């Protein structure tokens, strides 16, 4: 689909990057169209990361204010992590030193707590696996291709983690942090770069399996993989 293309005509609901014009459903971005029952959406081939509530992101602290931290989440919006989300409800700027938890340059795996486009997205690090990322190799990819990296029910990312013996933290904002033995990190980074380059091609799973030296076979529950979500 390219912007202006009519995806389908009739009684449908416009979803992501789709606009209703009369009874036509028109694409707004370059990408692949997907129709599930009544919902029509376009999955863009490229583009910036727009925060959504409940997304996991990797943020880089760029500023420490009196009341919280500002984090670069690879978007046109700056993530904000309030102090009370880290220190608890009795947080007070005069008694707590924010820099003991995060300083400028620190990476965190965070969840988008709330975002409504009128204020900067609010981050939270409460939850399993969330918090400071102490070490690892940073890999950046197109945010729109993150679903391919994760794969159906996390199949792809689990496979890469298993065969490289690495811990991989994936942010929906396109920032990935790989940590583990040097050889494994190299392998995992290669696999991620392969997905970045060939995300739109068929049998991506097979290519990654070959790269990793994993047994080649079809992914469970065959179907359009681009709908993969964690």
């Amino acid at each position, binding site marked *: 689909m390219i912007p202006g293309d009519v995806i389908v005509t009739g009684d449908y609901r416009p979803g992501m990057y789709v606009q209703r014009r009369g009874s036509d459903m028109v694409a707004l971005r370059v990408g692949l169209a997907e129709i599930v029952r009544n919902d029509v959406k376009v999955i863009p081939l490229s583009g910036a990361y727009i925060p959504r509530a409940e997304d996991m992101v990797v943020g*880089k*602290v*760029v500023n420490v204010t009196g009341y919280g931290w500002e984090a670069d989440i690879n978007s046109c919006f700056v993530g904000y992590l309030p102090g009370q989300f880290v220190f608890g409800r009795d947080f007070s700027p005069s008694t707590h030193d924010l820099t003991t938890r995060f*300083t400028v*340059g620190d*990476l965190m795996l965070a969840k988008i707590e709330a975002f409504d486009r009128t204020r900067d997205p609010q981050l939270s690090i409460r939850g399993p696996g969330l918090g400071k*990322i102490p*070490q690892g*190799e940073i890999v950046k990819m197109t945010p729109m291709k993150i679903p391919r990296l994760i794969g159906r029910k996390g199949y792809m990312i689990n496979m890469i983690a298993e065969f490289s013996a690495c811990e991989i933290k994936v942010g929906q904002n396109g920032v990935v942090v790989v940590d583990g033995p040097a050889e494994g990190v190299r392998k995992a980074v290669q696999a991620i770069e392969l997905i970045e380059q060939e995300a739109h091609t068929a049998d991506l799973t097979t290519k990654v399996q070959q790269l990793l030296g994993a047994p080649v076979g079809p992914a469970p529950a065959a179907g359009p993989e681009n709908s993969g979500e964690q």
Partner: protein
Amino acid sequence: MPAKSFVVETIKRNQIVELLSKGKRSDGRGLSELRKLEIKTHVIEKANGSAMVKLGNTEVLAGVKIDKGTPFPDTPNKGLLIVGAEVLPMAASYLEAGPPDESAIELARVVDRGVRESEMIDVSSLVIKEGKWVYSVFVDVNILNVDGNLFDATSYAVVSALLTAWMPKFVLENDVVKNTGEKMPLPVHKVPISVTIANINNTLVLDPTEEEEAIMDARITLDTDDDGNLCAGQKGEPGSFTPEQIITAAEWSIARGKEIRQQIKEAAGHA
């Protein structure tokens, strides 16, 4: 408010410092190795001289305009040579439009000084009528993409553009300056080469990338001329260099300068 300068991730900083302690760099270069340098000249048709320089991912475009002008009152028998540099807001995500900030001003001044103090151009021969009319040489530089070491990339672009520049021939007729329509080459005598070296955790690295610049303690820019004489320098950032480190930096500057000068001369078609 987003950050106004580049922030390096703490874990990346640790990686770079650890690699440097083993004498390695994160992009696989040697400590005194330059990134890939590409020079294209004659890129702006209407300018008197121009050059586009790529140093790794840093991209710089320079143009020369030569016209008649009035000399400064304190140097009535010298032509004008002014280098200006501007960093475009599109060059990096954290940059904003507006008047140049102090780093952009420093950039223009350091590059200007390198060209001026090496006496690359013989400004005393750019006089049409002493105290009244001289040639004015303006070199304007736009930074198109930022990936560290703007000093050297800008300097190479300015020098290449000047080497390819021509100037209109002016004559004085009844006290009026007339353009004869003829073209003549600029009186170029030397080819100054700027080399910037950063000090990160007491390891010297030549041609720092943006990541390396964000964590460096100090930086020094040294200009050398064709005979290997140091002719200009600038030290920046709060950290320091030991006397031995300065000697090493000067040796690197002279040695690398020779290779780079050769490359610039070839790209500009300058014998």
